[in-house]
Each structure stands twice: as C-alpha cells, then as structure tokens.
C-alpha cells in the first residue's frame, strides 16, 4: 500500500484516532496501540498544560505516537489561533487540528471562522488539519490558503451514523490536491472501509472505539477495515452492473 504523506510526515497507518470518551487512560492507550494509529488527537482543553503528571499525556508518552492537539472548545478564529499557539508551546508540535464549533449542540464547524483561522495559522508556520463540513468549495478554499489536508465530516461528531455526506465527500476527494481525511460520524469498521474505498486518504475514529464495550478489539477491527478499504481502492474494483444485460428491447429493431 502507498504511504500517506501529510506535510513532511509519512504514515504507515491511515487510521487516526482520538483520546476522548474512554473510561480510563489505560484502556485508551491499549486501544490506540491496538489500532496501530500513529496520529492521535488530543483536546487541548482536557490537558493540563505544564503539568508533567497530566494523566492523559503521560499514558500517551509511553508510545511512539504523534500527538495532534485540537482546538475543541473555541468559537472564533481568534481563539483558535491563540489555542494553536498554546498547543505549540505546550506539546512541542506545530501540527494542529483546527476545530471551531460555535454550536455546542451538534459541534458543527464554522466555515467562515475556520477559513480565517487557517489562513492565519499557515502564516504562523503551522501544519493545519481543518475539521470542516463536507463542503467541496470550502475544501478548495482551504487548500488555497495552504491547508496541508482537509478533514470533512461523514456525519455529526459522535453520531456513529456513517457517511451521510457521501455525495459531497466524493466531490471533495475528486477535486482535492491535499489528503482528505474523513472525520466524525464513522461508527463501524464498515463505514471506515467505505470511506477508504471512496478514495479518502485516511479516517479519524474516536467515539466508535472509546464507547465500544471492547475498545481494544474494535480498534483492531478498524485497523483491518481501513487497510482493506485502502487496498481495495488501490486495486480498483470490478465494474458494477445495475442489471443483467440479457437483451436490448429498445435497439433490437436495428438488427431484426
């Protein structure tokens, strides 16, 4: 399988994971390890910056994971830029997942503020991964301001509803010059495989792993599904027929 490259980093695994909603840090760490994910997103607001004993950070520090701080909780571009700078200082990474959701109910991303924040953050030297609505035009605009990838949603965060935005994800994947990572809404390994078969470069899965009765086993299932989906995409599919082609009742007269 091809390796995924975002900015200057290459990834063997096309499954990104998160750290929220787990019942304890050990389960979180074990599940992330089982997923073989190399990039794990962490809500900056959950971390005690400057505290060497922060439970979440210490349990993740034991492995070879890259941390991807996210700006969850901010409502404007200005707050996002500030949070990103804080994350850079605290976690020593210039990667940031830009999440700006002024709507606390569905946590839907604000396209206007996201674009503004990304433009600013690129200038400040960040590698940005913007969480966005599955909006093809917005994704192109983000690419133009220098986003190194885009993260359109499959359905609302935490819904486990799968790829409700499929038609738009297809357009985004078709048009994008940067990696497309389907984020949010992936509830089952089959959804993840589905996204990979569509041609997504990676997926990010958190709730579906954290809230499963068996996070470690489901994490492994997600890993396998992402690999299978990617492998299938690279192998390409046999043509799909919508019906059997037995006769041609409309054109048969030409040959009678």
């Amino acid at each position, binding site marked *: 399988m091809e390796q995924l490259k975002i900015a200057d980093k290459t990834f063997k695994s096309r499954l990104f994971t998160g750290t*929220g*909603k*787990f*019942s*304890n*840090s050990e389960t979180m760490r074990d599940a992330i390890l089982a997923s073989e994910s190399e990039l794990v997103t962490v*809500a*900056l*607001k*959950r*971390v*005690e*910056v400057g505290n060497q004993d922060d439970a979440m950070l210490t349990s993740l520090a034991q492995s070879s994971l890259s941390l991807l701080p996210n700006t969850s*909780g*901010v*409502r404007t571009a200005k*707050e996002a830029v*500030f*949070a990103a700078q*804080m994350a850079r200082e605290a976690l020593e990474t210039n990667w940031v997942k830009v999440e700006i959701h*002024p*709507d*606390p*109910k*569905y946590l839907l991303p604000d396209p206007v503020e996201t674009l503004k924040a990304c433009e600013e953050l690129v200038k400040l030297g960040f590698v940005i991964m913007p969480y966005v609505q599955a909006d093809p035009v917005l994704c192109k605009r983000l690419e133009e301001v220098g986003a190194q990838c885009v993260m359109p949603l499959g359905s609302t965060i*935490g*819904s*486990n509803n799968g790829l409700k935005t499929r038609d738009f994800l297809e357009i985004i994947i078709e048009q994008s010059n940067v990696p497309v990572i389907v984020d949010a809404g992936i509830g089952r390994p089959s959804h993840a495989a589905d996204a990979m078969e569509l041609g997504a470069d990676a997926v990010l899965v958190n*709730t579906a792993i*954290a*809230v499963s009765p068996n996070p470690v086993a489901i994490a492994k299932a997600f890993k396998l599904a992402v690999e299978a989906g990617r492998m299938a995409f690279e192998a390409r599919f046999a043509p799909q027929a919508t019906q059997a082609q037995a006769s041609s009742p409309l054109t048969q007269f030409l040959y009678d």
Partner: protein
Amino acid sequence: MTNFKTHLNSYNWEEVLDSIFSKTKREVQHALNSPKPTLEDFKALISPAAKPYLEQMAAKSKAITKKRFGNTMQMFAPMYLSNECQNICTYCGFSLTNKIPRRTLTDAEILKEAQFLKDKGFQHILLVTGEANKTVGVDYFINAIRLLKPHFANISIEVQPLDQNEYELLIKEGLYAVLVYQETYHEATYKTHHPKGKKSNFDYRLETPDRLGKAGIHKIGIGALFGLEDWRVDSFFTALHLKYLQKAYWKTKYSISFPRLRPFSGGLEPKVAMEDADLLQLICAYRMLDEDVELSISTREEENFRNHIVHLGITSMSAESKTNPGGYVVEPQSLEQFEISDERSTETIARMLQESNLEPIWKDWDQNW
C-alpha cells in the same frame, strides 16, 4: 420572539397539567419509539402513564448518554462565597428573616477555600452567593474571578440575576457559565415563595437567561426547584425554556439541574412530593428529548441514588460539597443553605466512578481562551 416571557404566556398552567396527566400508554410508546422526541413526547415521558416504562426509558437514556458523552463524568465543586441575602425565600436557609450569622468571604478566605478544592483535584468550580447587591455585587464577583482564575480552568456562578452589561463584564474576566433556576414557572406560586427582595420580581428572573444569551455566555444552567409546584408541569416549562433558548442563543451550551427541596433549620415541606423514581423518570425524559444537554446532579441526592444515576443520563456531578461560606476550611461550622445527603469524600466518589467504568473529568476547559 424577543424573550421567553411572551412564549411562556401563550401557555396555561392548568391546561399543561391536564395534558400531561391525560397522556396514554400509546402516546408513551410513541414517544419511546420516536427518534427525535418533541415537547409533546416529553410530556408523555414525564407523565404517570410512562411509569411502567421506566426500565425501557433508563436503557434508552443510558445508551444515548454513552454515545454522546462516552464513559466520562464531568466533576465540579461549589464554593459558597457569601450567605448575606436581602431576599425572603420560604425554602432557603439564607432567607433574610433567618437569624443566622452572615458572612462574606474575604480575599484571603476565598484563596484558602480555593486551595482546598484545588488539592482535591477540582478544576471546575461554581461560585455561590445569596443576593446582597451592595456588598456582594458585580465588583465583588469581578474580584473573586480575578483571584480564582489562576487556580481553576473553569469558573461558573450561581448568584443573583444581573443585567446584561454586568454579565458582559464578568464574561470578559473569564466567567464560563451562569446557573439561574427559575424555582417555579408558576407565577402566583413564585410570588408566595418570594414575598420580599429583588427576587420577588418573577419577570426579571425569568428573562435572565435571555440577558445571558445576549451577553454571549458559554453555558447557561436552568432548572426548577422541585417541591414548590407540580414537578411535571415545572419540568415541561423548563424543557420549553431550554428549547426556546437553544434556538435563540445557538452558540450557548445548556445544562439542567434537578434540585429537590432539602431540609434546613425551619424548612418548608414540599407541596408535591418527588420520589426517586420520579426524578429518574425525569432525567431519562430529558436525555431522550435532548441528547446533548448537560444533566447535572448535586450532593443533595443520596449515595445509592447517585451511584446508579451516573450511568443513566447524568453527565456532571459535584462531590464533597459544602453549602456554607467558608465551609471547606475557613468556618466549617457555619450554617448551611441546605443539608447535603451524599457526604462521601471526593476521592471516594472518584473511586466509585472508576469502579463503574467512568472516568472523572477534572478539566475540560482552559482559562487561556
């Protein structure tokens, strides 16, 4: 619609009461199977007709909560700053006519209490006072927030209702949330329980969440005090209030609390009793009505109830609370606002949660933004 009052006035208390009590099993079943329950469904879910379905409601509420909030529980602690109060509230230990020593914490005392809560691990705190605008007004709150901001990730208040511009000042200082319970949405009953003081103004209190929404607050907590009126009708109006606010102030997050009348010296007997089963039914109904709303439980409730409720819809809880100013360190012996029921230590509660497969969340905000 410019405020909730106009909205509330289009309803009649007695009609809502009749409507809830005449809900049938069929309507309950419909509500149970509805993917997006409406306020009519909510009435069915809190009605007596839904009682036989409590187990099903609990299962549903549990599943929704887990999906949306995962295996976590947000922890917070109240910090009472003052018991000075110019209001008469028939059910409250701080009521003006109660002959208790009054105390408002000084800066040094606030910091002492803060250190205690910090050492316990709390990062989210709720500052509580009575209503004494001259001594414990906006300036006092600004000062308290400035003192506490370096020590806590998230600061909320439960104090007298303020004007919009005053809230704006406090938000600028780093205030995250305001809790303001209507006590009861029954205007006449409200007046009998709040005969004197600024709090006797029903409309000013009712419109507080509107002022907060306009001020751009991050979170508003609402609720009714159960015991003053029929809990079902008051809960319907709380839900109506929630739905109204969510549409009007969509950038704000909401939380619901469930205070039941608790005994205090010289206290009031509840007019309409609310049993544990009723409270559970209500919590589940809220969760089914709204997957994302924060549902909060305090130490007013008893140990056994709290141990079980943590899985069934509740997403935020307090521990080891003291309801008297200086109650943690400064003056533990002063009179409480009400008696708490669950007196376990923070460590014990945290262990209980962990053993129940829930991670206590101490920090879920940052004062730097």
